[in-house]
């Protein structure tokens, strides 16, 4: 009986951890492309909030969560475009413009919610879809394969991003533009175009990440529903050493620790709740601290590209 209960708890932690990891994965993978091309978008949180609201609102008005998700991606792309105009064309300081984007997203999403929705409202969001054969696997099946489609998408995108970034011509261009933009430019690659593409792609995925919280998970919206997850996603890109697999490892580490601490609290295990709450962050910091050797980062990260400029 105790063994069964232990298994139940472990599976519960696993299932919750996978669900928790989804928004981090989506947003961080998007930011991966952005940063690999040389731009860092600190406004990810604002994009997620706009994506969360748009996904919620369009699902509410159209009745279809899929249209809601698509709309969230479009709005995310739009915000990426704005960030591109500011960081690439106007060459503004990316850290500051990123924070500005964050405030814009937070403010607009809250404003639109107040104007067009008003109070706490329910939507017909995504329901978990059990994958036919896989979800019947004893024990692991329901924990791993009974989630909403955004969860599956988030995890499937990890190998997809790896292939795109490392095995395609476009991915090579992205990496070149983020490491040695001058060399890429001389070879005919449009540095700014690639960066725009990556920013828009990255923000599109961040918009989807936000919608995963509203349409996918809670089926509601409230002001500041992301509560800082966008910033953690940015940190995960660094943690993952700008690699999709590293990001997967980071997102899972953080989310599993978070899921475990929830269960520790709920089961009444004698552990101060304050420590439980900070556990995921501590675990991540410890993992980060255990780095050996020099850390590679895209060399041109954060530097606007000017043809003919020195350095």
């Amino acid at each position, binding site marked *: 009986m105790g063994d069964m209960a232990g298994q139940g*708890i472990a599976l*519960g932690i696993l299932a*919750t951890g996978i*669900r*928790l990891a989804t928004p981090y994965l989506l947003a961080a993978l998007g930011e991966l492309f952005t940063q690999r091309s040389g731009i860092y978008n600190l406004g990810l949180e604002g994009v997620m909030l706009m994506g969360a609201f748009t996904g919620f609102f369009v699902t509410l008005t159209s009745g279809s969560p899929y249209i809601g998700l698509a709309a969230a991606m479009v709005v995310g792309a739009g915000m990426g475009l704005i960030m591109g105009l500011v960081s690439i064309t*106007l060459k503004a300081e990316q850290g500051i413009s990123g924070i500005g984007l964050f405030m814009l997203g937070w403010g607009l999403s*809250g404003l639109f919610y*107040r104007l067009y929705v*008003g*109070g*706490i409202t*329910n939507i017909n969001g995504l329901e978990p879809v059990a994958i036919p054969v896989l979800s019947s696997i004893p024990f692991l099946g329901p924990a791993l394969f009974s989630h909403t489609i955004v969860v599956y998408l988030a995890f499937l995108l990890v190998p997809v991003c790896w292939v795109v970034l490392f095995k395609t011509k476009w991915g090579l261009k992205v990496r070149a533009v983020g490491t040695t933009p001058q060399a890429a430019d001389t070879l005919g690659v449009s540095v700014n175009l690639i960066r725009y593409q990556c920013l828009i792609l990255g923000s599109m995925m961040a918009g989807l990440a936000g919608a995963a*919280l509203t349409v996918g*998970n*809670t*089926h*509601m919206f*409230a*002001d*500041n*529903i*992301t*509560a800082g997850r966008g910033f953690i996603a940015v940190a995960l890109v660094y943690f993952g050493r700008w690699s999709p697999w590293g990001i997967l490892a980071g997102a899972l580490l953080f989310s599993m620790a978070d899921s475990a601490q*929830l*269960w520790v*609290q*709920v*089961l*009444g295990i004698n552990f101060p*709740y*304050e420590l*439980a*709450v*900070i556990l995921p962050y501590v675990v991540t910091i410890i993992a980060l601290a255990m780095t050996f050797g020099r850390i590679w980062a895209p060399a041109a990260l954060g530097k606007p590209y000017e043809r003919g400029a020195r350095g």
Partner: protein
Amino acid sequence: MKRMANMTKLFLVALTGISLLLGGCGTKAPTPSEAPKAQKLKVALVIPSTIDDLAWSQSMYEALKKNDKIELVVSERMGKPVDASAAIRQYATQGYDIIIAHGAQYYGILKEITPEFPKITFAYGTGAQSGPNIFAYEPQAQEGAYLMGLMAGKMSKSKIVGIVGPVEAGDAIKYNRGFQQGVLAANANVKLRIAYTGSFGDLVKAAEIAKTHMDAGADILTGSSQQVPGAIKAAAGKPGTYWLSTDMDQSSIAPDTVLAFQTYNWEKIVAKMIELRKSGTIGGQTMSLSFADGTLELKYNPKLVDKIPQDVKDAVEKAKKDIASGALKIDISK
């Protein structure tokens, strides 16, 4: 050519800045169309979340809205005391009569600001420490919590109930301990589990804790703070689970899930503050909200009231009378 581009950029930036400034100035001063008969009291409310959070902030906002003798302005999303401090100072310099900082976290900044504005009445809560021009208000959340704990203890089929807590502070401490006692009094075999999100505003986390409680067997849940709508929604996802609310009527989120709710009737507190101020007392008192004077009430969700067994309702009534009369004291000292 480059100089032209720079000038254009500068012009656009200046234009944007000026239009934002003008937009920000907005309509602060009310248009004096007719001189009002009685001078309305100017009240400012500073809240950590939004006026439509269906919890802590909304309950105070709605109470103030009902009072037609006051002119109300609100500053929302002042979760960080630093932001709130700036807003409070601004209202103070603009000459507001009463400034309410609706949150336990605001006491520190009020202590700093209030000496500079000795003629203005400030108020905050949940808190017990008042000042020369500060009113403190303390909902005795543990009273309603005890009654709902009684309900949970008696009605739980799985004998496991859960609390979705924010941070172990202020209102939450009182509420949780009162609930704990109620459950104990109802049935000592019922397990009560408490989990905290670590924040007052993380709806998604609150929903996850609710889900975890339910996965671990709880069939009646409760919780406090402005993030509970997330948890209530999650509870609604599993039919057979009930939620017990505090702050205000939250059944609109989940009409088949919210069984009962404790309401904070701030109207009486606000009226009392206005009375006292008019008669010359601008602070220095701690006001309790409790069942004894009707500032706290317990209401059943009319849709689900038939699901509550009569013996539970009787036990609640009896306990309510005992609490109101002082015969039953709820120990919140842990």
